[in-house]
């Protein structure tokens, strides 16, 4: 990406395609689109080098609304398609949009392999805990017992947590944000853009029609301070209106607990310092039971590991074997007929 475009040259408008946006009124996808359209010009990457790939679902309509290259593929397969695209052209800035159904139900396997291979690619998973496009069935992230059209008595399925799954697959970058939290989401997108390898970003997204208010318990303005833990590398894990709350590790039970530093014999020093390169901290953050604990947001985990693309590039360089076609076709023991 040598020839970057001066940031000033591109504006939000350059990234707005001529297609009507067709989500339901009030859908969280609008907010994400808006944030992304504002964010893209700041990357300084020419439009033609940016590609958005998606699967199928409401969320996966995303690429149509961006004036970049785009591929609205088939259900669950976007990571596999993006992997091939990357192999064809390692110079692109690749972005993938998926849903909780697309990415974790039908597409779970491709997500796993993309993450472990560390393909250089940013994955935005719009998690609305429901199948939007097919009009409201439970998804793998729907809470157990959820009543939907396909589960009139509530689901028997235990949900999977996207971030925990991504860590279990060996992901090198795992983050979370919220559809309408424009500033926070932008900062997470910036980090994702800078990451070399697969950056996995879960975005809590409100489906105003089939799962309205699914995240209100922590996204509601009145609750945000007490229910959101915004993590920052090197900073203590504090939250609350005035940062009066914190989490610390209880080494006896090897689990986190909420404290009010200064009370009950606890001090500021007890608060765990976030280290985004520490798998165990990431693990603890994704395993905090909600309500008792806040929801951890921001970059939970980020480490460097060689990317799949680098591996391929290196092999192309160091390969031996025939270097021209004639040599290949001749092989080692041809014979001549006169």
């Amino acid at each position: 990406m040598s020839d970057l475009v001066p940031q000033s040259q591109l504006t939000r408008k350059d990234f707005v395609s001529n297609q009507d946006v067709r989500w339901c009124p009030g859908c969280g996808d609008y907010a994400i689109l808006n944030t992304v359209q504002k964010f893209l010009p700041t990357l300084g990457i020419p439009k033609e080098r940016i590609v958005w790939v998606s699967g199928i679902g409401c969320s996966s309509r995303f690429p149509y609304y961006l004036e970049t290259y785009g591929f609205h593929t088939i259900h669950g397969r976007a990571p596999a398609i993006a992997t091939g695209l990357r192999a064809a052209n390692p110079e692109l800035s690749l972005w993938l949009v998926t849903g909780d159904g697309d990415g974790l139900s039908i597409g779970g396997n491709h997500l796993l392999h993309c993450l472990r291979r560390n393909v250089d690619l940013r994955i935005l998973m719009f998690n609305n805990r429901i199948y939007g496009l097919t009009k409201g069935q439970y998804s793998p992230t729907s809470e157990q017992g959820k009543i939907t059209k396909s589960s009139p008595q509530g689901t028997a399925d235990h949900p999977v947590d996207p971030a925990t799954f991504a860590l279990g697959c060996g992901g090198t970058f795992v983050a979370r944000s919220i559809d309408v939290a424009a500033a926070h989401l932008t900062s997470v997108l910036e980090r994702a853009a800078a990451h070399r390898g697969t950056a996995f970003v879960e975005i809590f997204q409100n489906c105003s029609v089939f799962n309205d208010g699914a995240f209100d318990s922590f996204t509601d303005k009145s609750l945000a301070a007490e229910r959101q833990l915004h993590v920052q590398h090197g900073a203590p894990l504090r939250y609350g209106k005035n940062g009066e709350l914190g989490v610390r590790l209880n080494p006896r039970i090897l689990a986190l607990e909420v404290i009010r530093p200064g009370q009950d014999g606890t001090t500021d020093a007890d608060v765990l310092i976030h280290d985004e390169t520490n798998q165990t901290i990431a693990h603890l953050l994704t395993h905090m039971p909600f309500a008792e604990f806040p929801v951890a947001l921001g970059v939970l985990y980020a480490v460097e590991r060689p990317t799949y693309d680098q591996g391929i590039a290196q092999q192309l360089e160091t390969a031996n074997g025939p270097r021209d076609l004639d040599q290949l076709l001749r092989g080692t023991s041809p014979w001549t007929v006169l």
Partner: protein
Amino acid sequence: MNEPTTDRTSVQPQSTVMRRSGAVVRFAGDSGDGMQITGDQFTTSTALAGNDLATLPDYPAEIRAPAGTLYGVSGFQIRFGSSDVFTPGDSPDVLVAMNPAALRTNLRDLIPGGLLVVNTGAFTQANLDKAGYTSNPLEDGSLAGWNLVALDITKLTLTAVRTVALSTKEAGRCKNFWTLGLMLWVFSRTLDSSIEWIEARFKRRADFAQANILALRAGYAYGETTEFSHVRYEVPPAKVAPGLYRSISGNTALAYGLIAAAQVAGRKLVLGSYPITPATDILHELSKHKALGVVTLQAEDEIAAICSAIGASFGGAIGVTSTSGPGMALKTEALGLAVSTELPLVVLNVQRGGPSTGLPTKTEQADLLQAVHGRNGETPVCVLAASTPANCFEVAYEAVSIALTHMTPVIVLSDGYLANGAEPWRIPSTAELPPIARRELPPVEGFRAFERDPETLARHWVAPGTPGYEHRIGGLEKDATTGHISYDPVNHEKMIHLRAEKVARIARGLPPAKVCVGADQGRLLVVGWGSTYGSIHEAVRRCSQDGLSVSHLHLTHIHPFPPGLGALLQRFERILVPELNLGQLSQLLRSEFLVPTRNFNKVQGKPFHVEELVSAIRTELEN
């Protein structure tokens, strides 16, 4: 020794050399006996001797079955001759059996009176039991109908290599070269190419090289000594077109065809594949050629494999995926995406026995209707079929060329028989390869992703990275020019017809249907496709030489059919369609041309015998 000749010449005092027009030799032994190497080396020397030839290995289905078992037998058959050879032969003239299990599983194929070389050293009671022999066939007279040569090859080998410091196990391993030596003597060959190979193979193990060469020479010498009192044969060179030749298997030829096309087209080749027998060797082969810019992705499954190929095609590379049987079924959804987005793509299906997991190591032609019809919706793709191992090169090359020119997925059908079979191939020079045109980009101004070439109906292929052409594609129905999502009923119908017509127009660039043996009208036309080429060709030639009114038409282009096919079919009284399935091409011909085809089917996981076809042809002509 199907067609023995009568010339006898005596070249050496102690043995008689009989001149023959050809022979079929089969090596059979335990998986661990090295029969594939023996076969390969024998093939090389045969090729160097100027014979035309065809070979076919027969691997056991199990990875490495316990020694001595029936299902652990590994075989290699070669047919060679002084005129055109089209198949590895129905029944061997010579059988080499390295143990009782090999004898038991192969003897029924040996022609009556054929030469039978047996390694008595492996005829222990334990091995006889494992092979299910209740009495020793070497002793019970059951081999009387053949020309038996019983030798303790194990012991002869150990003696030959005793000067090299090897364990008994290591020394015993050389017996395949001893056997090779003997057979090279029988067919009046030199040892040179085999020695060269051994030296290269064991560059870092001088002791192994030395022992194998000793064994090889000993086997040859054994023939020359009086002990081996049998005749010696000579098969004069065939008349083949001059040129540089090599031996090539179908899988390798497919891989090379793709690489060649990518080089000529000036595009990166990206293979997305998931291992599956008998297609895996394509992945193996292509993964060796990163120096030629070939990227291979071993995907997590067949769906990811084709999807990564589609992603690569979207990115401007030549996306290819290779598979077989169940793997092909898994790719059909994504194939629809490639059709809908009108991206180039090559899908190699090396057919095997079905249904389901079926018979993974056996050959079959039962995926034809799947290739033509096996997708949801009206989803036309181009379907080609390779007919011989070497022809796999041309067909793979043509597949890339069609995919790029017509912006369409192309399915190439091969099968287990072609995949592993090998034959000599005249190596084309790069300059001989047909050009693959690259379309110029349309003007940026007013670019529409689905505007089409008026002749081919192909849309433009503009890869991400190209400034000014930013656009989105996807699997929903789209407007016939802009490519934007469209739910319009009339547009949908237009697109359905455009996609069908685009594929149909590929026929405009194809050579007209033409018979390859016989007159272009007559009593009987035998129509085949794919790997049955050799057997049908030979059978029809034989019948034709016998004065029967029969011709052979072999189809490479299944969808669309080549121009003139219907008219050609009408010029024959009868049409016989031999297939290794229950009559799939036959159905396509009937529905397209309303011709009363007659089927001749075999579904045994094995190719046709020429004899079977000859009698089928005779039956047709008699009724």
